[in-house]
């Protein structure tokens, strides 16, 4: 038997045939090679059956010879669905708009978080990000990718040893490690070395080649 799942995509019609000899009509149709299914009797002189829309021209040919009448009751399947969708195109537009909204909104930057940074560095980072265009409400496609942001930040802000940039969903997380610079030693002019106790000897290696003993 023929597989019927393609009927939906090519489209089919529900037909009501009434008059005497509806059975004969069905015989004539099947002998012509039409595919007919779900035949039901309604009342005493009418049959309802389903057939492919591509066979409608053949049905018309057969109808000329037959003495009963047919009425198309309903069209089913993909072509008719498309027709209906086109008629109510507002729904389709709404659906597309909805998907578009979800897509765009889920690809926006909705948050920037900076962790482990002093307020001053955080401010600097935020300023730098603003310059780069990483702001709340920007679409992620037009923002640099994570690695580029990381490189630019560590290039431009001296106070950072390392910054980790991570994009989680719609939020950027920045993990900051600041430089711990030792305090600068005060520079002094040349001076004498004086022993703290008497008679103690002090060995100094002021220069590599001459060792002084006092």
């Amino acid at each position, binding site marked *: 038997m*023929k597989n019927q799942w393609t009927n939906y995509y090519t489209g089919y019609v529900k037909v009501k045939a009434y008059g005497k000899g509806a059975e004969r009509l069905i015989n004539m149709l*099947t002998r012509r090679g039409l*595919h007919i299914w*779900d*035949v039901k009797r309604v009342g005493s002189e009418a049959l309802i059956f389903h057939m492919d829309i591509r066979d409608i021209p053949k049905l018309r040919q057969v109808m000329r010879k037959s003495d009963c009448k047919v009425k198309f009751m309903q069209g089913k399947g993909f072509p008719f669905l498309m027709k209906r969708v086109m008629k109510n195109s507002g729904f389709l537009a709404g659906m597309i708009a909805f998907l578009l909204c979800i897509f765009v909104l889920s690809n926006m930057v909705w948050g920037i978080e900076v962790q482990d940074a002093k307020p001053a560095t955080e401010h600097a980072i935020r300023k730098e990000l603003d310059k780069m265009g990483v702001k709340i409400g920007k679409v992620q496609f037009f923002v640099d990718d994570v690695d580029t942001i990381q490189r630019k930040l560590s290039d431009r802000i001296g106070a950072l040893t390392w910054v980790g940039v991570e994009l989680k969903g719609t939020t950027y997380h920045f993990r900051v490690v600041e430089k711990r610079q030792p305090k600068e030693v005060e520079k002094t002019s040349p001076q004498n070395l004086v022993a703290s106790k008497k008679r103690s000897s002090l060995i100094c290696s002021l220069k590599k080649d001459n060792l002084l003993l006092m």
Partner: protein
Amino acid sequence: MARNWGKKVKQLMTKTMDLPQDVMMDLPRITMIGQLHIYIENHRGLLAFTDSEVRLMLKNGQLLIKGNAFVIKTILPEEIMLEGKIDKVYFINE
């Protein structure tokens, strides 16, 4: 006379060569699934169809199926698939 001869030869052939009889002699092949479905191959057309009765033409004679809530699931020139509650199947020889 000649037709009878032909028939006899056919019967002999099917018996001796063990060929399936429905193919050789144009008999209907009927498959039923409980009372739910009946699938008939080798019919020669629909004679009458109502909710409770289906009459099919065969090569010689008719097949009458009684039951209720009949729906023809598919119909092809030589096959028919009937759904419903089947109570009785009659062979009517003319």
